[in-house]
């Protein structure tokens, strides 16, 4: 890896492969531009929060945050000019965070839809019947139900 980086940098800066550190130094104006870009994106994400887009709000907020994070990682943290192995390590951390999210929330979001043995035949979010579950009992005793069954819409109003 050090070989790759040093040859790259030798090409860019015409330095010999002398074992010294030849950092890529960006002009300060460039860093100012990145900062201003980050401020603009922050104002944008605040502005968008006042527009009701339903579930899109969350997606837009995460997309803007990811744009900001990319600017910070790529330029402030020099990943663009860095050893590519560092970028690989960073991205693999993100990959595993994705797996963590996907598997965990796939479980927690769908509890109550399939496990009729526990009497959890309703969607936990809205209390509506989930397809494939048991028919509801005539007189339900809510106190025996798992906590997450009774949450969400109805109780909060």
């Amino acid at each position, binding site marked *: *890896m*050090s*070989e*790759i*980086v*040093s040859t790259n940098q030798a090409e860019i800066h015409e330095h010999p*492969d*002398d*074992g*010294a*550190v030849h*950092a890529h*130094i*960006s002009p*300060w104006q460039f*860093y100012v531009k*990145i*900062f201003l870009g*980050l*401020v603009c994106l*922050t104002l944008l*994400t*605040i502005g968008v*929060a006042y527009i009701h887009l339903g579930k899109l*709000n*969350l997606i837009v*907020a*995460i997309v*803007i*945050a990811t744009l*900001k*994070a990319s600017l*910070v*990682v790529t*330029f*402030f*943290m*020099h990943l663009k000019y860095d*050893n590519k*192995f*560092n970028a690989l*390590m*960073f991205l*693999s*951390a*993100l990959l*595993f*965070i994705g797996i*963590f*999210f996907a598997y*965990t*929330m796939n479980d*927690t*979001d769908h509890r109550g839809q399939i496990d009729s043995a526990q009497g959890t035949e309703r969607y936990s*979010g809205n209390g509506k019947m989930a397809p494939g579950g048991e028919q509801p009992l005539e007189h339900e005793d809510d106190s025996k139900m798992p906590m*997450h069954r009774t*949450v*969400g819409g109805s*109780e*909060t109003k």
Partner: protein
Amino acid sequence: MSTEAATEVASSEHGDGAGHDDHAHAHPKFLAHHFDTPLQQFETAKLGMWAFLAQELLFFSGLFVAYGIYRSWYPETFAVCSHLLSRPMGGGNTIVLLFSSWTAAMAVRAAQLGQKKNTSRFLLVTIFCAFIFLFIKYLEWGHKFHEGLLPGHYFGHQYGGFFGAIPADAEVPDLPAKAHIFFGIYFIMTGVHALHVIVGIGVLIWIWRRNERGDFSKEYFTAVDLAALYWHLVDLIWIYLFPLLYLID
């Protein structure tokens, strides 16, 4: 492969593994003797730092997953409670942290150019911004404490009586059920983040002192670079925390 290449370069410089003392120019003061070249030392340090940063991301991801689960279970609670947080303060803190990230990047740039005075100046501004961030956080938290917007079973228990019994009919704003869960997540996430800010202040002060002492040069600025990387990570986490906590609907 890469290590072979590195050793090759090194051995060609040093002759047949001759004693390091023979080549004073190849082993400047900052170069630890178990490294062959400054570049190898620099790359090693960076690799270690990125491994640590990856670990930090995974560590925080547990909190973000907890957030995801509970927001998905109680979307309305999260929306209502989010409005109890101060957007001007959260937004202001975002700008403060972004600015401090810029000054940290500028400190590294100054160090790369061998501008000792500028490095110190930018580091000090970064540290100052960190204190502003914490001060605003203190105001925010204080406000929540006074209103009894506390995590877990402290919820609804106004500041001043932590150790007494929790009154069943405490004067709490009319909030949806599970509001205490939102505030539990809010306090833990912003609290662990603030802890990182405090650690960052310590690290940056240490680097500033080393810079004043004259440890760094154009050839050796690794520590400044790594401290800045850590500071950028703190910024990175906040970039996600701000919209997720303060800007729900």
